[in-house]
């Protein structure tokens, strides 16, 4: 198995799908030039600028254009450079992409993938660092994938592109240069399937995207104290594989949910609500959330470090749950 970075895995997944299906087109700012992080580097050379389409900085219209292209037989991939700018495209995403299948009584399908980069990395401040996945998860008709490693990134992206629904594929910038074994061949990771990334029986830790790493580090530290933590990566948040989480909680009796998004109204709240409904009498202690402060993302590196949840806060929460 080749060792690949997260962004190389995304690029190879995208390229494989473009080779496989001539109706896959990519639209976005600077995509034909590789983009600011080099995710699409070299693709214009292989597929031409007709299929790697550079667009003006008009997120809302580009999103609508891709939706229209989907209604006319293409399978578009839109790149929104930072999730902070998806706000400009929310009208099209929420009112058209998500609803046209339903509102048309099934006449229309919108096989659209939105690749969007998110998260804290490199002190970029409040307009280039947000985690807005919970907004998107509130919208019926959208699927949302949020991979935590290179292998899942590739497999989920391929699933997203082949899906006949709009899928928002969220790429955490902090993971771009992380490396993992990426299986060769045409491996699909189904959307809506969580992964148990570390087994354990004392406490369940559900962590999303960039928080899976700190959760695993926390589990390692807890193991040295004799606490076996089970770490679960949901990989997708809509649909959410709640069964895998509930199964784990029934075993451990304790749950900690970790995400980089702010705590209030985060996807953690949804996970907690569903878990208490399905496994209330299995819970030994209150469910805890580890998430960012309810504040905009600060720009300065010291404040950013405070803002970002990490291993220490997860370990602390686990100890609190077990106490």
């Amino acid at each position, binding site marked *: 198995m080749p060792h690949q970075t997260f962004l190389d895995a995304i690029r190879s997944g995208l390229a494989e799908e473009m080779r496989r299906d001539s109706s896959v087109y990519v639209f976005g700012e600077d995509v034909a030039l590789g983009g600011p992080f080099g995710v699409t580097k070299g693709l214009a050379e292989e597929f031409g600028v007709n299929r790697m389409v550079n667009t003006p900085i008009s997120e809302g219209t580009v999103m609508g254009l891709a939706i*229209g292209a989907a*209604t006319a037989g293409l399978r578009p991939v839109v790149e929104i450079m930072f999730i902070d700018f998806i706000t400009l495209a929310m*009208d099209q995403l929420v009112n058209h992409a998500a609803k046209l*299948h339903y*509102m048309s009584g099934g006449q*229309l399908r919108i096989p659209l993938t939105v690749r969007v980069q998110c998260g804290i990395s490199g002190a970029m401040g409040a307009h280039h660092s947000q985690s807005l996945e919970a907004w998107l998860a509130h919208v*019926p008709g959208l699927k949302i994938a949020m991979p935590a490693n290179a292998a899942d990134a590739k497999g989920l992206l391929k699933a997203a592109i082949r899906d006949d629904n709009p899928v928002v594929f969220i790429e955490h910038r902090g993971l771009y240069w992380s490396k993992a074994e990426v299986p060769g061949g045409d491996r699909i990771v189904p959307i809506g399937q969580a992964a148990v990334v570390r087994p354990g029986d004392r406490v369940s830790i559900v962590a999303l995207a960039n928080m899976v790493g700190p959760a695993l580090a926390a589990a390692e530290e807890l193991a040295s104290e004799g606490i076996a933590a089970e770490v679960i990566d949901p990989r997708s948040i809509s649909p959410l594989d709640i069964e895998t989480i509930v199964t784990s909680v029934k075993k451990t009796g304790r749950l900690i949910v970790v995400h980089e998004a702010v705590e209030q109204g985060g996807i953690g709240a949804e996970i907690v609500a569903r878990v208490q409904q399905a496994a209330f009498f299995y819970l030994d202690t209150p469910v805890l959330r580890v998430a960012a402060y309810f504040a905009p993302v600060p720009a300065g590196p010291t404040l950013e470090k405070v803002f970002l949840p990490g291993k220490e806060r997860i370990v602390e929460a686990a100890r609190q749950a077990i106490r």
Partner: protein
Amino acid sequence: MRNNKTNSKELIDLLRRMWLIRAFEEKASALYAERQIVGLLHLGIGQEAVAVGACSSLREDDFVYGGHRSHGHAIAKGADINRLMAELAGRATGYCGGKGGSMHIVAKEAGFITATGVVGGTIPLALGAAFAAREKKRGQVAMVFFGDGAGQAGPFHESLNIASLWRLPVIFVCENNGYAEFTPLSAHTKIERLAQHAKTYGISASTVDGNDLFAVRDAMQKAVEKCRSGKGPVFVECLTHRMRGHYEGDPGKYRELSLLADWKKQDPIGRAARALKGKKAITEELEAIEREARALVEKAAKFALSSPWPEASEVDTQVTA
């Protein structure tokens, strides 16, 4: 009135289409008054020449996108009025199974891809269809209808820019009926003719009398031809007036009665009919056209109101494909 290019038979077909739209919307208005249709109902009575002049210039496989006032566009593109009326009435036999309603009509089989409840919302979609059409090399074009109210929205300008930049085969049809909801255009912008915006972006644009079927059709035929031969996009602004309120139930008190009376004299159906008379067709034929349209619409209403409501279990089906 320019009608030299349209022969009598064509003219009769166009008149039939206009009457079908008029009769459909008048019936919808009556059903709304009886609460047989509920929700928001935006009628385009008085604007039929734009819908018919534009859509009659298209091929069946061309893509049309509309807005919140789009029953006429769907019918002009060939949508089945039974299924359309059933959709307005929220019935299972409607185009969208009762999930779309008046503002979200989709009649894909007829090439009416979608309407929208968001002003100007489908303008970018038409760009995408035009892009796809060009890539697939089937010679199709995309057409999008929107009102003067959309001209002040960001996506309108972004779309004009991209359509021009990429030379997309898209026809922008601006139905300038003078009012954005309750407010006259002059209170929303200093720009008198929205076609000016298109010119700014380097798009071939014109303003026509939108109540003159022949003027609209002439402009649309030229626009479609340009787009098909790769010389798009084209913007056509059609000056018209809606004879009803913004929605059914809006008394329209923001308009002078004299203004309505003036526009009534400009009724697009009456003007087209007079042209037919000029071609020595008989009065009875005109009356028959209206009668037939009303009969078809009565049937559509019966079909709609005798159709079942959607099953409760449909409430969360088709959320995803």
